[in-house]
Structure formats: C-alpha cells, structure tokens
C-alpha cells in the first residue's frame, strides 16, 4: 500500500537502517492487533431519534449485526469502542456527546448515522437548536447517508469501518491517498 509519510521537520538524530519490507514481527503484530480491533467493535447504546430504530432493526434477527460481533452493546462508554450517532444532535446534546466521546478509552471510532448526524439533514434550515453535523463536535470516521439509513447501510458502514481499521492508516494518510487517487 503506497502511503505518503510527510517528512518530519527535524531529521532523525542518528542513522536509520533500512529494513526491506518492514520488520516482520512488528508489522505482523500490527496486523494481528488491527484484526482484533476491527473484529471486536462494541457499540455504545446511544440513539437520539429515528435512526435508533433502524439501528435496532440492524440488531434484529433479519439483519443481525451480531454476525460481525457487534452485538455486545455496552451501556457505559468506558467499555465501548464505537459510538454510532443515530439521530440529530442538538445544541443541548452536543456537550454530552463530547463528554461521552471523551469517556471512551482509546482506540475509539465514530459512525455518523443518517442525514441529521452527517449534516443536520432535514433540520438544516430555519432551526435554532440543531447542530449541523456531529463532526462539529467529535471526529467522525464513517458517514452513512439516508433519513433514516436502511439497516444494510449501517452494516455497510460498520464493515467499512472494519476495513479502515484493518488498513491501519490514520485519517491524514487516508486523505493523502484519496488525493493521490484523484490526481
């Protein structure tokens, strides 16, 4: 995978020995860690509005996200890995959401489910209390479109998040990759 790593501003003091293909032990260990993290995403029980019902549908027997190991929904943010923002975030809720996110231990991931969490959606214009997108409050990894999105869309988002974790790239690296692809 071609990754652009930006040059550090000060050069590394000392000599660097190039290892062809990366250290086998460390890179494999990284893969194992990412495999574990991506396959064990425990969501926080958090739904504000309509999308929460579709999230429940995704948990139900027909869609069943337990197949991927997502069914261990934790009620406390301390034990959760991924926060699925299912619904609108309003000004009064924003500090609470931030606090919930801060209470989660690293590594933590965020999925913005539905139009409201992505951009304010149907409540973008003429409202005085809606936050226009949850990414104004906390960093979002995956956005799902729809009002509300279908359960399949949520499953796709979760699988996309798994792929993101498996690739082991940071946000900036992914952005750089996309920019390169665009050129």
């Amino acid at each position, binding site marked *: 995978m071609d990754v652009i790593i930006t040059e550090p501003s000060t050069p590394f003091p000392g000599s660097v020995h190039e290892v062809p293909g990366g250290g086998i032990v460390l890179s494999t260990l990284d893969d194992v860690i990412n495999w574990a993290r991506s396959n064990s995403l425990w969501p926080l029980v958090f739904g504000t509005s309509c999308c929460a019902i579709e999230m429940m549908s995704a948990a139900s027997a027909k869609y069943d996200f337990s197949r991927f190991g997502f069914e261990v929904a934790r009620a406390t943010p301390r034990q959760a890995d991924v926060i699925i923002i299912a619904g609108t975030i309003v*000004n*009064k809720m924003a500090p609470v959401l931030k606090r919930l996110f801060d209470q989660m231990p690293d590594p933590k991931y965020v999925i913005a489910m539905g139009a409201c969490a992505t951009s304010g959606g149907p409540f*973008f*214009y*003429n*409202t*005085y*209390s*809606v936050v*226009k997108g949850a990414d104004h409050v906390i960093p979002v990894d995956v956005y799902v479109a729809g009002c509300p999105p279908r359960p399949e869309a949520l499953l796709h988002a979760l699988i996309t998040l798994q792929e993101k974790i498996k690739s082991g790239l940071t946000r900036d690296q992914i952005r750089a990759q996309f920019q390169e692809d665009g050129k």
Partner: protein
Amino acid sequence: MGNEELIVKLQELFPAASIIQGNDWPEISFESGADFLSTIDVLKSDQTLAFDYLFCETCVDWKTHFTMVYHLDSTRFRHNIVLKYKLDRETPEIDSLSFVYRTSEQHEREIFDLFGIIFKGHPNLKRILLTEDWVGYPLRKDYDDPINMIKL
C-alpha cells in the same frame, strides 16, 4: 352540550367576554386584566360544563400582543371550548394553572421557555427544552439567531 347551547351558557356566565363560534368549537376570549383563575374555576366546577381536561395549552405571538390559547375538554359531557387570553407584549404575565390542571405545569414551562411568558404562582418556572443560559425566546416572531439559524 352542543356548541350553540354552550355559547348561550357561556354568555350567561361571562357577559364581559367575547364569544364566537370557531372552526370546530366555541371560542371565548378575554382581554388582559380579566380575573383568569376564577374563570377557570367556574368552567371547571360548573356542573353543566365540567371542563376538567386541558388537552392543549399554547401561545401565539401576534407581534403586537400575545394570546394564550387553552383547549378544554369535558370528560363527562365531551364538549370542548377554546379559551383565549390576551397578554400585553411588554409584560406578559398570567396566572399559572398548574394547581388546577397538573398537566399545565410542564406546558407552562415550555411556553415560558419558548415565548417568555411569566406564569404567576408556578412552582418551578425555568427553562425546560433549552439550556439555562439561552438568550431570547425562540418562538417569538422577532427572534433572530444569525449563528444557529440558516435562513432558506
């Protein structure tokens, strides 16, 4: 009681008020300054009226004044009226109904929150939907919030 009978009865009881037939139900309107609590008391305790169920309480901002709108139902006779009370825009104050109809405790908090109407005698009058430090009353017609509100 039918709507026509209700209007006749109400006119007997409240000669000062203006009573008209609205789209669905009789509408009885009071000017600001009328004794509101005793009116409600009569409406609730009168044996032929028995308006014991307040199913909607809200306010309308008419730019020059506010109008409190109460929708009353009688669970015994199943007749409804709409009760309106005109409020001054500068000092909007009205008696709280929270001890007559318990449901109005929350409704009045909401109206205070969104319209800024002061309910005298309300046990816990503070903002309910918005944060405590919110400035302004959003459902008033002159409310403007250039930061949060994106006008279409």
